[in-house]
């Protein structure tokens, strides 16, 4: 058996494949050139094979996004790498007042088929401006697509879906995920979980520890938080003999909650799990929709597990305190079962 593929390698392979398949795909961003190959090495090797289609930029996030928009308006398929997800804040005008609006505002005369890849997430001690999960801020922007890669999703396929989509796609990666092995379902299983995968682009994954037998709660999460949610699910079985289902969303906007609703129909309880700060996070939108759509199925209110509203400290000791952990998820489930 060969060494497991790490997520960074899977993403890198996906990019190489896309560059091979289409010559309208370009990569724009900071520090992309080999041998450096991007701050997190997701882009390694591209500039050597396709020197004309990898464009290393100055440090100008607002214009990197604006240039990609103009490039995409004219029929190219740029992929932008923003070095840290925290820096999408610099491009918010380009995103909110341009990229997200052109197609509808220009009455469908244009499309803006660009992809913005960026790593979010903490737990590396990078501190307040290099550790955030700001995808929450993108969920309030109509006209874009937001997807989040998890280690159990087909990362290459998710990238391909993003590039072929005519809408602007924000592709959220995760710093810890890069180094972890990609784990795909084999005969419907990943480790001790049975896994159901939807179809269409960016399908959600649903995990069950007892072959979708009776379960007492659903945990919905995405991206880098998936392993934490699965660990909580395992702990709940081992320590409290409580079975849960875990739904890992891949597409966060437009939000499709069918897999969650289907699971909640079975479990009657829902906990949302995200690394971003609590207020106005994705958990809020999920709770608002599920309490309305699944009112009769819910046996308890939807609970949210997220980071404390505040900055992400640099000191690991303080960072661990403020980011959500396995225990928080376990506690949330326990409270719902009271």
């Amino acid at each position, binding site marked *: 058996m060969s060494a497991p593929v790490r997520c960074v390698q899977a993403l890198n392979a996906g990019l190489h494949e896309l560059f091979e398949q289409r010559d309208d795909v370009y990569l724009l961003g900071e520090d992309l050139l080999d041998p450096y190959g991007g701050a997190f090495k997701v882009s390694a090797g591209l500039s050597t094979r396709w020197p004309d289609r990898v464009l290393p930029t100055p440090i*100008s996030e607002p*214009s*990197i996004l*604006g240039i990609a928009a*103009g490039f995409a308006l004219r029929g*190219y398929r740029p992929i932008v790498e923003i070095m840290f997800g925290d820096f999408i804040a610099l491009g918010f005008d*380009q995103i909110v007042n341009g990229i997200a609006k052109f197609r*509808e*505002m220009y009455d469908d005369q244009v499309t803006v088929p660009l992809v913005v890849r960026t790593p979010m997430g903490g737990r590396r001690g990078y501190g307040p401006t290099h550790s955030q999960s700001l995808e929450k801020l993108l969920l309030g922007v109509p006209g874009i697509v937001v997807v989040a890669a998890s280690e159990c999703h087909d990362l290459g396929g998710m990238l391909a879906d993003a590039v072929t989509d005519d809408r602007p796609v924000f592709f959220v990666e995760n710093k810890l995920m890069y180094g972890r092995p990609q784990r795909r379902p084999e005969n419907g299983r990943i480790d001790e979980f049975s896994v159901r995968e939807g179809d269409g682009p960016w399908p959600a994954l649903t995990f069950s520890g007892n072959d979708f037998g009776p379960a007492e709660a659903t945990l919905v999460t995405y991206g880098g938080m998936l392993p934490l949610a699965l660990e909580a699910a395992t702990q709940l079985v081992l320590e409290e003999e409580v079975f849960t289902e875990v739904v890992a969303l891949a597409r966060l906007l437009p939000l499709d909650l069918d897999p969650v609703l289907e699971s909640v129909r079975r479990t009657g309880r829902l906990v949302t799990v995200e690394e971003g700060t609590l207020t106005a996070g994705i958990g809020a939108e999920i709770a608002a929709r599920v309490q309305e759509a699944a009112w009769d199925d819910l046996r308890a209110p939807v609970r949210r597990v997220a980071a404390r509203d505040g900055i992400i400290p640099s000191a690991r000791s303080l960072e661990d305190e403020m980011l959500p952990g396995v225990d928080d998820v376990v506690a949330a489930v326990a409270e719902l079962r009271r």
Partner: protein
Amino acid sequence: MGVEADTRATGSRVGARGSLYAQLVLIRRFEETLLDLFAAGKMSGTTHTCIGQEANAVGVVACLDAERDVVVSNHRCHGHYLALTDDVDGLLREVLGREGGVCGGKGGSQHLCAPNFYSNGVLGSTLPLAAGIALAQRERRAGGLATVFAGDGTLGQGVVYESLNFASLWKLPLVTVVEHNGYAQSTPSHLQLAGDVEARAAAFGIATERLDTTDVAEVRGAAERAVAHVRERGEPFFLVVDTYRFAPHSKGDDFRDPGEIAARRERDPLTVAGERLDAEERSAIDAAVEERLERAVAEALAAPVAGSAS
């Protein structure tokens, strides 16, 4: 909207343009008509007219190849749009919110789109967009370029300099045209712009020219030099035209010194260009424009409001 969509798809919106003078008059009378429609309560929202500045739109666009070159514009975009597309009906219906608007009534005065034309009302944000379009032109290798119009006040936005840096580094076929009318809304330039405007672009290694004129022929001459520079060298160019708007910033109050406005009206671009024509030819053009606009307005006002058909 079916037909609209078709004409847009085939780019046939880009009609045969009249003489430079005819274009100046068309733009002038089109926008004066808009102000009248506002005053008459037949129009809502907002509008920014380029009355007094028409020579820039007409002179610059006259040097472009409407089939392959792209124009990116700002809030004050009617002149640029008409100079490129001659699409009186699509624009009029767009700003009036009637069926048949070039953006189906969604964009309105500041957000226009047609083949090879894009405008947005967020100041500065259009420069990176134009740089990206220029990048597409460069990669397509068909000799096309991008032209972006910006006002002097817009030079306050940092993305302008990010874009100039990219344009110079990446040798983008981009002509930036600064319409320097001395004001940003109510604020005179000296409260907004430190140092030297041309030097701001030159510092990025970009060729520049600045001229103070309302003569469409002079503007066209400078634009020809700019376009030639870009096409021959595959490098950006930065053109500053000192100009003046006769009308208020939008529809609102105008606190500029009436004497200042009157003095500038003596250099009205229509007068400058019109004096070169014999009286007969000129009044024939004027009459044709009136007739065209009257018909366009009548038809537009008779059209259903946007969305009612769909």
